[in-house]
């Protein structure tokens, strides 16, 4: 696997990279076809060598290299008793961290569109004259268009993320960053950090509540964001950890500590880490969109027909449109049949917390909190439990919760007739989404249901072949639209159950043809296939797909 990087490529020296000699024009990547027929690089100078994707669980058959422990574990940094960790100067914090050009910095995205820490830190680093940094956030929120400026001005030369959207997505797709961006699932990122594939030099971790010794939590404070699940991984593995807070709490922080003081080097006190109105958005409402509701109804019917909704079941669902409506149908069914589930997982929405409080589930595992779940639920509900990204979905640890999951409902931008799902590139081929936990839960759950309308904005959702494979079709059990249910032919048992329940089952090709009668078949986006702008890792690090430069510049992509 890619834990041990092979840096023997002829035209690569790690020094070249750090000194800015990395130029894509000089670089012809050697490509290989993976098991899905997608061309992926064998190695990328500066990033290392890669395995092509073979199958969802090929990693179980492979001999895995020992993790690069020396790199992944924080080096010892003894501090004298009563050492003062607090500073109110970003510059001082950066200087003390020992950050150098060429190093890797990380952030979490728990504050989502309300986050002010990424812009604040990048601005300061840019002013301090840093360049050639690798940016490795757990993901990038929609609102962070300013990151594109720092890709352009050379502050950031490499990007590792779960997704790229907006101006950042356009800049990357237009080829403005020389090094291909590495896109990973949440579980895949935890794996990469823990294995030492992606060593983090300095982690800037927004902390809604933090005491002077660095004990921190996200459940509380005016910028409360709930779980700090992504931050916990970085705190445990980064060489240097800076807690960034606007809510300095009395020592000791209580009643809960998400990241303990012994992992935190410095506490950076700032005026504001974000906009609370964009962090805690209030409970998301169940959609009234009739198409979403029909999709949800069909998805629920399939879930019910699968026989998995029984006492002790576990469930994960997103917070968007059709997904939350599925949860509502599931809740009604559990009430009617007096079913009590074991746990809910994932991005935790207020609706799921309501289900916990009303006794539909025994527990909720929360790696990231949404809408009204972000504030005081964890303090109120002992069985609303914060878990880190590794516990959530890392395939290489000793057991992640995603592998205990019965049912997951997932969204998609598009899907192909082999059930491969794209959540990353739009119809124009431009990066605009995020992998999130999609791959992880699809692989881990007994039943992975992908939901989407059969067409959006006149563009059909089912493609002959998706532009970008983010979740392999082998892990997707069914695709559900308002026009019917397409069961993956690999799941004959599920198809039989759906038919027995007289559900509106359709062959995915028939659905495609039916939709195309209304929409026609759009032209595929045009790419410059000589230029890879991003790679999609499977959760185990093997490469699923490559994203290519689109024709046109980032301005024309708007």
């Amino acid at each position, binding site marked *: 696997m890619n834990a041990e990087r092979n840096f023997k490529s002829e035209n690569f020296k790690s020094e070249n990279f750090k000194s800015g000699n990395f130029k894509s024009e000089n670089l012809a990547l050697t490509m290989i076809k993976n098991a899905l027929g997608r061309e992926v690089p064998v190695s990328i100078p500066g990033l290392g060598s890669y395995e092509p994707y073979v199958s969802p669980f090929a990693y179980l058959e492979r001999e895995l290299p020992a993790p690069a422990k020396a790199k992944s574990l924080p080096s010892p940094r003894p501090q004298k008793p009563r050492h003062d960790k607090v500073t109110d100067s970003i510059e001082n914090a950066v200087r003390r961290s020992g950050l150098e050009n060429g190093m890797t910095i990380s952030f979490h995205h728990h504050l989502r569109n309300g986050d002010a820490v990424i812009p604040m830190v990048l601005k300061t680093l840019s002013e301090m004259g840093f360049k050639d940094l690798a940016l490795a956030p757990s993901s990038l929120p929609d609102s962070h268009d300013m990151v594109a400026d720092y890709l352009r001005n050379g502050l950031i030369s490499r990007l590792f993320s779960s997704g790229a959207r907006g101006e950042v997505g356009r800049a990357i797709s237009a080829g403005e960053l020389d090094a291909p961006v590495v896109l990973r699932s949440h579980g895949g990122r935890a794996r990469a950090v823990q294995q030492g594939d992606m060593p983090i030099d300095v982690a800037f971790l927004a902390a809604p509540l933090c005491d002077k010794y660095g004990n921190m939590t996200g459940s509380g404070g005016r910028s409360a964001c709930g779980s700090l699940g992504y931050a916990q991984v970085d705190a445990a593995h980064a060489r240097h950890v800076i807690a960034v807070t606007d809510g300095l709490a009395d020592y000791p922080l209580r009643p809960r500590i998400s990241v303990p003081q012994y992992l935190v080097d410095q506490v950076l006190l700032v005026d504001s880490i974000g906009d609370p109105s964009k962090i805690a958005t209030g409970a998301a409402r169940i959609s*009234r969109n*009739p*198409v979403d*509701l*029909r999709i949800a*109804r069909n998805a629920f019917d399939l879930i019910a027909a699968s026989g998995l909704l029984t006492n002790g079941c576990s469930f994960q669902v997103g917070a968007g449109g059709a997904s939350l409506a599925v949860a509502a149908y599931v809740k009604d069914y559990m009430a009617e049949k007096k079913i009590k589930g074991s746990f809910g997982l994932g991005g935790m929405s207020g609706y799921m917390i309501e289900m916990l409080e009303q006794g539909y589930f025994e527990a909720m595992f929360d790696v990231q909190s949404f809408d009204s779940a972000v504030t005081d639920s964890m303090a109120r509900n002992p069985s609303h439990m914060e878990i880190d990204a590794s516990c959530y979905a890392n395939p290489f640890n000793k057991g992640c919760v995603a592998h205990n999951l019965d049912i997951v409902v997932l969204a998609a931008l598009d899907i192909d007739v082999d059930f491969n799902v794209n959540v990353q590139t739009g119809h124009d081929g431009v990066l605009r989404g995020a992998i999130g936990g999609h791959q992880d839960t699809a692989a881990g759950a007994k039943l992975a249901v992908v939901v989407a309308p*059969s067409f959006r904005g006149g563009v059909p959702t089912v493609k002959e072949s998706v532009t970008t494979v983010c979740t392999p079709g082998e892990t997707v059990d069914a695709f559900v*639209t*308002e*026009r019917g249910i397409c069961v993956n032919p690999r799941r004959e048992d599920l198809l039989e159950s759906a038919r027995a*329940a*007289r559900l509106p089952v359709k062959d995915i090709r028939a659905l495609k043809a*039916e939709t195309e*009668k*209304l929409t026609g078949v759009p032209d595929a986006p045009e790419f410059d296939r000589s230029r890879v702008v991003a790679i999609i890792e499977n959760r185990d690090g093997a490469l699923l797909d490559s994203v290519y430069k689109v024709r046109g510049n980032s301005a024309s992509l708007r």
Partner: protein
Amino acid sequence: MNEAIIGKPAEKRRPCRSMLYMPGNNPGMMQHVPAFGADSVLLDLEDAVSEREKDAARRLVSHFIREVDFGDSIVTVRVNGADTPWFERDLEEVIPSAPAAVRVPKCHSPEDVRHADDLIGRIERERGMALGRIKIHAMLETAHGIERAFEIARASDRLEALTLGGQDLTADMGVQKTRDGVELFYARGRVVMAAKAAGLMAFDTVWTDIEDMEGLKNEARLAVQMGFTGKAAIHPTQIDAIHEAYRPDAGELRRAFRIVDAAERAQREGKGVISVDGRMVDGPIVARAFSLMELGRLYGIGQEADL
């Protein structure tokens, strides 16, 4: 009343429990009709469409009926009333696209139905279409119309259904539409009875508060109890609740299977008298058993073992 005027029993037709209103100027919604699972769809050119958009909606609806697959939903169109400048143009453009039926609003008298019948017949002849295939659903929404319900029901062979328009009717009566609908009790009874007597289908009015599902469920149950063959829906989310109200009772359905079984056996054996569970059953009960079975199929119950 002699037997000849009694039409085909309404129960013999394909069940039409729900009739979904779709604004005729909203292609974004119309394209999704097959997904909603309504037994029939009513593309509306009347109240849902503002005066400025009447022409565009008429054209759009005709085009949709011709070009778009509505799946299993029966397609009907509500045209503007005969007292408007759009009535004739609506029919002239819509009839050639051959919807299953046209809903004529504000029927006060048998003449209103005959007027529509004549116009539709003329258009069918001019276009060389099969005569009389496109049906009329007469909408009764005035006190006058309700009082003449049976005459209206017998006004034309083209007539297939009576439908109650509760919003306009309560306004005409000078009362408010209430949650339990007691003010519409007489009108509902009158419309159902006239439709049954003439062998037509009867559609109940819409439940307008889309947030209030409990209210809808109660009203749908009432409509079923009173004998309406279907109920209009103003929003796709109402369809499931309406269908649920029509779900046949398991005990009744079990008995229906036994009655049909006995009737078929009696026919094979040339017997004239049918006895089920020790009781004699006659023609109307057998007919109802058949229609219950038909209804059961819509809920995936094809045989007694499915219950």
